[in-house]
Every structure is written in C-alpha cells, then in structure tokens.
C-alpha cells in the first residue's frame, strides 16, 4: 500500500487513472489497525486492478476533511480522481472486497 499525505495525495489519488482505494486511518483508531492488514492482503490480490493507498488522518487532518472524511475507519474508492464510493465505521474486509468487485 502506498502511504499518501498532503504532498502526494493529488498525484497518487486525484490525478490517478483507474481505481484507487484509500484507507483512512489513525494510530489511535483500534478498528483501523485491525482492518488494515486485511486491506493490505486485498491490495496484493487485486494488484494491477486497483491501486491501494493509506492516509494517516491524524497527520493530515485538513486533507481528510477536504475529502469529507470525519470518522474512522473510512475506505474511499476513487475512479479517475473522483470519489465514487465510500465505506465508513464498522467496516469489514468482506464489505471492502464486495465494493471492489462492484467497481473493478
């Protein structure tokens, strides 16, 4: 998974072509840390079909809010730079994969 922050979010996500999945998390969010390894496995499984990024919201609060993310965990799906879907709170890896299959 690519670590994104305010310096590269634009290039990696908003200007990217195809499907990009962004895992919004923070070091304090226990459910986020629980979910992340499962999302990382999806990143391997869907290599070439979607790009996977993670964003630490504690260090990039303004960026998170600009993406209208105000709760964790949030998994956002971007297609050609535009947010097309989002899962937030009580997210399971099964939900993420189902959404992925819908979008790839």
């Amino acid at each position, binding site marked *: 998974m690519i670590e994104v922050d305010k310096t590269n979010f634009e290039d990696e996500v908003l200007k990217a072509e195809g499907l990009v999945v962004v895992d919004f998390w923070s070091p304090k969010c*226990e459910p986020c840390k629980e979910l992340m390894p499962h999302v990382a496995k999806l990143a391997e499984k869907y290599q070439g079909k979607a790009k996977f990024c993670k964003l630490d*919201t504690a260090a990039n*609060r303004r960026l998170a809010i600009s993406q*209208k993310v*105000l*709760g964790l965990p949030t998994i956002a799906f971007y297609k050609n730079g535009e947010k097309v879907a989002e899962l*937030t*709170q009580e997210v399971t890896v099964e939900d993420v994969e189902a959404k992925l299959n819908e979008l790839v």
Partner: protein
Amino acid sequence: MSELYDIIIVGGGPAGLAAGIYGSRSRLKTVILQKGSPGGQAATTEELENYPGFPRGTKGPELMKAMADHAISFGTEILNEEVVDLDLDGEIKVVKTRSGKEYQSKIVILAPGASPRTLNIKGEQEFRGKGVSYCATCDADFFEDLDVVVVGNGDAAIEEAIYLTKFAETVTIIVIHDEGILDCNKVSAEKAFANPKIKWVWNSVLEEIQGDGIVERVLIKNIKTGEISELETNGVFFFVGTVPNTEFLKGKVKLDDRGYIITNDKMETSVPGVYAAGDARVKYLRQVITAASDGAIAAFAAEKYLAEEETFKEQVLKAEKPVMVAFWSPQVEESIAAIAKLESIAGKFGESVKLVKVDTYRNQRVASRYGIKEIPSLLLFNRGEAIAKIAGSLNEEMIVPYLNALITTE
C-alpha cells in the same frame, strides 16, 4: 467443526476478559470470540473512571489491553470472530460465526455488551462518520480547533465532553433539563462547569443535523418555548445511553422486554450451561468493575457446573450397576434420616448396588432436570436411565423389590 472447548465466551470486553481469566486459570479450555479487537466499550474511553486501583488518568485502551494480556497469559485464546448464531439446547453447544466457522463447547458465557443508543434524529444516520460520532477516543483528533456539540448529560456524556475540550475549540452540551441540572456525578459536573471551553444549551434537544457531505450545522429546539435555533458546528457526539447487543440471542435465552439477558446471581441464563455477564444482562450498575465481577462469577459458576455434571455422569450415567440417587438437603431433617436408611439398604446389597447422594441445597440443577419436587426423593438408575422415582418418605419395602428385580435381570 472445531475441537471441543470447555468454555466459549462471546464478547471480549471487561466481562468476557474477566471470565477468560477465571476460566483459563481453572485450567479449562477457554476461548473468547470477539468481533474485531478486544476491549469493548471500555476501550473507547480515554479517561476511565471508577475502576479501583486505577485512579484518574487511567486510559481505557491501556487497561483493557492489560486485561486481555492477563487472560492470554493463562491460556485464553482470543479469536477475531463475530458470533451470528448459536445452538444452545444440547449438552454440547455449537456457536456459529460470520466467517462460516463452527465452535463447540460445554459452556457458553454470553458477554456481548452494549452499543451506543441512536436517537434517529434527522441527519444522524446520514452523517455517521461525517461528523456524527459515538466515540470520542476514536474521532476526537479530527476536531482539533473545530467546534463540536455533545448530546446527553449522564456520566459518559459529561466525561467525554471534558475529554473533547483537549481537542476542540468549543464543546456545546445540549441538555434537556433546566439550567444547572445534569444526570452525571457531582465531581464531573463541577469539572465541566469550570471548563471555559464548554458551553451549555439548557432545556433543549437536538432537532436536526445538516450539512453538505459533512456536518455543518445543527438545529436545536428549546422544549419550553418550542423555539428552534441554528448552531454552526463541525461535529456531533451522541452519549445518550446504550442498547444491549443481543439481537442474535432472541429465542435462544430469555431476554427482558428491552433485550437484556435475564440471569440469576450466579449469572445462569434460562438455558443450562449458558451464562451471561456484563452490560448485556439485566442489572443495576453498568460499569467496568461490575462487568468484570459478572465475568468472574459466571466462569466460577461454570466451573462448578462442569465438575458437578462430570461427577454425575461418571457416578450415575456411566455406572455398570444399578444406582440409587438420593436427593436430600441438610435443612430437611427427614431427608437426613432417609439417607441413613438408604445407606443401610445399600450396605445389604454390597457391591451390586451403588448409592449417590445429591445435596439439593448446593445443586438444584440435577434435581430439576429429573423433575424432583419433594425432598427426600429417590431415583433409581439402570445403565444410565432413570427407571423409577420414589418421592417422600422412603421405606425399605418399597425400594428393595426394585433393586432385587434389577439385579436378578442382570
């Protein structure tokens, strides 16, 4: 199907973790099935109050991590599984999880806790995770230098509001009561009143949450005047009580009309071998200390249950020869005399008949399973089956013919 556990605990909050500590410390094979990481609600509060020995400043996540480590150190397994269905009727209980796995055990301890209550205010669902939150620890840092609203005025609401002031610019608490009246404890109330970042809106309820993609403002209704006012805010935190996580238990164990599990003071539910602990059961005080206490009692009672069942099985159900099971109680004089009589009868038959005494004062379960209502009573077992019941005063003339018949048919 999994290997057979002694105890399956559903839920890894303080109740489930305490049960795990007691269970595995008694060398019972114990597993906790917990959706996501353990810790429960207690891990969602940064400022944990009231747990003895851990004064102000103890952090919920840290205390819960310590409890989980404690349980694991004695051999409790903690698995990330969400329980979706249970089959509790048999002697071996089957627990099914969302991942499709099935676990089996002799005992089930239900400790699924509770979740934040929602008010279903307009916008509440829509802005969940978009400024609407039920967990300050999880989301507080988003609101650094921003303005938030807190709904509720009990212990959790006021304590979490104080915590939020470490991040937010202002924390506006909406209180349904008259000015100065809060449902929380006095210490927290005084602390909150002295906090310059906290603002109060009295006699009011939250009417609606509005925004474009994220929370931007709320409508507040004064219940005395009916007047509706608008307040710009970035977040809304709800702390208005909890509801038990017992949807999946409907029809499995007895619940009260609000969905809480009904237990006795040994934490036994309506189903033998199934116990409940913590916030999910009917109780007076829902705190970490009482959750842990419930868990300890449940696991201890479960251990006694297993030992009693095991003994009964070995001595009665698996016995090769006829067994007289005498139900007595130290409080019933007549039953003490009956025991003496039975002992002498058993003596006459020597090795060919066995006498097993069940003290119904300590163990009512076996008695009620076999429908014993009177003390003393006698049950005759042959090859694991109850073949005759004699209630009330026992005399030799009634019993001996039975035993003779059993022995001669051998």
